């Protein structure tokens, strides 16, 4: 297909290089002579991958549509518990639960966000905090007798892919980061489409968006549903990676962390969100020796960042369309109308003004 965008190559190429380097990491770390064969490092990278996935799903809601959702953990929890219950109670294989976990989380998002879409900014934020807390407390109280209360659910199976059982951190590394790569690809395409543009218009001027014919309520709802679907699937990956889930993992602070990943990285920007996950999940691990001081330093660094660079580290770069071939191709109605009396006279000589209309033309 013809190139309709000019910066079309930069992002795909840099994205491909990034994921290729990631794919080479486990063998490199394994042979680097680290303690435990680099398993700890792989484990951290897996966490980063999961948070990147969650960040990407929240990015659609918070970054692209500009909806202040600080309760994203609720959808994540719905997905994780769906997988845990389906697997431990009904024996459904993990990978089959993946789309179901997404669907249940998406359906939940549809039900709970539909009545609150009219809320703006901070009001929406407060309601989403309520949602994530209600979900956590329900899980804690063993709702429907299925969630195991504070003890959570243990004994979740490992996923099997074409008869191959994924057990080691390296296996999960490829599962999680493969899923991240797949998500980046799809979300990038989504961003560069009618849907992605609609979210951008809504985020920046809702009145102008609806005045241009965009159904703002519909798109906000769809943003929540798509974001929740992906968060639900991330929940599946988390449940099978840990083999055990409990309400503690879905506390309010998780939602705040996800919020911070999206805002710090650069709201709306896919590379920004991935960088945000590396910084917010990876850096505290890197400075583990500093013990308690690391969170203080970390908090301060975030504050400075938000003051110095409020748009995030890697803000969204809009695609530039290339329509150069169509310039000058179509008819223009400006200045060509013979009906328009003060016709634009090229290089007007003030000596012979051509019958100025009501004193507007010959005033020079």
């Amino acid at each position, binding site marked *: 297909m013809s190139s309709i965008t000019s910066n079309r190559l930069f992002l795909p190429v840099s994205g491909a290089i990034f994921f290729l380097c990631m794919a080479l990491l486990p063998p490199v770390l394994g042979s680097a002579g680290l303690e435990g064969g680099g398993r700890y490092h792989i484990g951290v990278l897996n966490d980063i991958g999961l948070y990147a996935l969650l960040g990407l799903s929240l990015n659609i809601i918070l970054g692209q549509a500009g909806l202040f959702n600080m309760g994203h953990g609720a959808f994540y929890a719905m997905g994780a518990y769906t997988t845990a219950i389906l697997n431990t109670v009904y024996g459904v294989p993990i990978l089959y639960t993946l789309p179901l976990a997404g669907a249940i989380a998406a359906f939940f998002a549809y039900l709970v966000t539909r009545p609150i879409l009219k809320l703006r900014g901070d009001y929406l934020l407060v309601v989403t905090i309520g949602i994530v807390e209600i979900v956590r407390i329900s899980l804690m109280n063993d709702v429907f007798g299925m969630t195991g209360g504070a003890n959570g659910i243990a004994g979740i199976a490992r996923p099997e892919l074409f008869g191959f059982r994924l057990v080691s951190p390296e296996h999960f590394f490829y599962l999680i980061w493969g899923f991240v790569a797949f998500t980046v690809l799809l979300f990038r395409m989504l961003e560069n489409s009618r849907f992605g543009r609609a979210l951008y218009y809504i985020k920046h001027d809702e009145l102008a968006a609806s005045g241009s014919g965009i159904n703002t309520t519909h798109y906000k709802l769809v943003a929540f549903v798509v974001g929740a679907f992906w968060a639900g699937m991330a929940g599946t990956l988390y449940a099978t990676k840990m083999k055990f889930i409990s309400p503690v993992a879905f506390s309010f602070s998780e939602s705040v962390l996800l919020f911070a990943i999206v805002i710090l990285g650069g709201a709306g920007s896919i590379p920004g969100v991935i960088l945000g996950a590396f910084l917010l999940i990876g850096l505290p691990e890197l400075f583990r020796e500093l013990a308690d001081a690391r969170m203080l330093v970390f908090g301060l660094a975030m504050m400075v960042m938000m003051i110095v660079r409020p748009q995030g580290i890697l803000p969204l770069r809009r695609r530039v369309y290339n329509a150069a071939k169509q*310039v000058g191709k179509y008819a*223009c109605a400006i200045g060509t109308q013979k009906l328009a009396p003060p016709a634009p006279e090229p290089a007007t000589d003030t000596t012979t003004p051509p019958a100025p209309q*009501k004193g507007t033309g010959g005033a020079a």
Partner: protein
Amino acid sequence: MNNLLSLNNLIKSFGGLTAVAGVSFNVAEKSIVGLIGPNGAGKTTVFNLITGNYRPDSGNVIFARHDITKTPTHEIVSKGIARTFQTIRLFPEMTVLENVLAGCHCRMRAGVLASMFHTPAQRREERSAIEKAMRELAFVGLDDQYANLAKNLSYGNQRLLEVARALATEPRFLILDEPAGGMNDQETADLIGLIQAIRSRGIAVLLIEHDMHLVMQVCEKLVVLEYGAVIAEGTPAEIKANPLVIKAYLGSEELD
């Protein structure tokens, strides 16, 4: 001539203030109608009632024989009413082309899945939308600016860009709220030609404008509002001679 739009006894109050107090008038197909009146007469409120941004307390709006009084704004746009805003409401950080693509949106079909997988039908639709947007940009003379950010355009060109975005929704009826606001004489002269060209595409135009020269030249019919009520209606010549209008604009003679 057939009426494209009919306003029937629209009433709208905000708290204790009655901004629109029983406004009725018609706009014929393919006509250019001006809505004039002193500041605060309720002109923009009437526009917002037509486009669904406000709901009237009573009365109704009939467009192409359908009652659109309770229709949501975005549906009103897809039924064929497009508008520009008195204070420019573009997407300043987006390119000129993307601003016009916002108008194309309601004539496109691609859903979330098609958008996520860039299906062949979705790509075709994107290409033809870009083509249509470029055609509308050319129509207002901004096609060479397509890759610029909207905020970098001059004030007059930003107004033209709003017109292009409105035209991209394929309207039958276009509402312009002070289109010449902030334009210089040359730009205003071009605007007159543009409004006439829009009409010759079969689109009816309703405009609020303070530039009386433009209004008298371009409109076939004028509706004069004062204190939220229609005080006169007629051709520009009739309106110019109407004592009520002269009084509304200049005050009564004994005041001078």
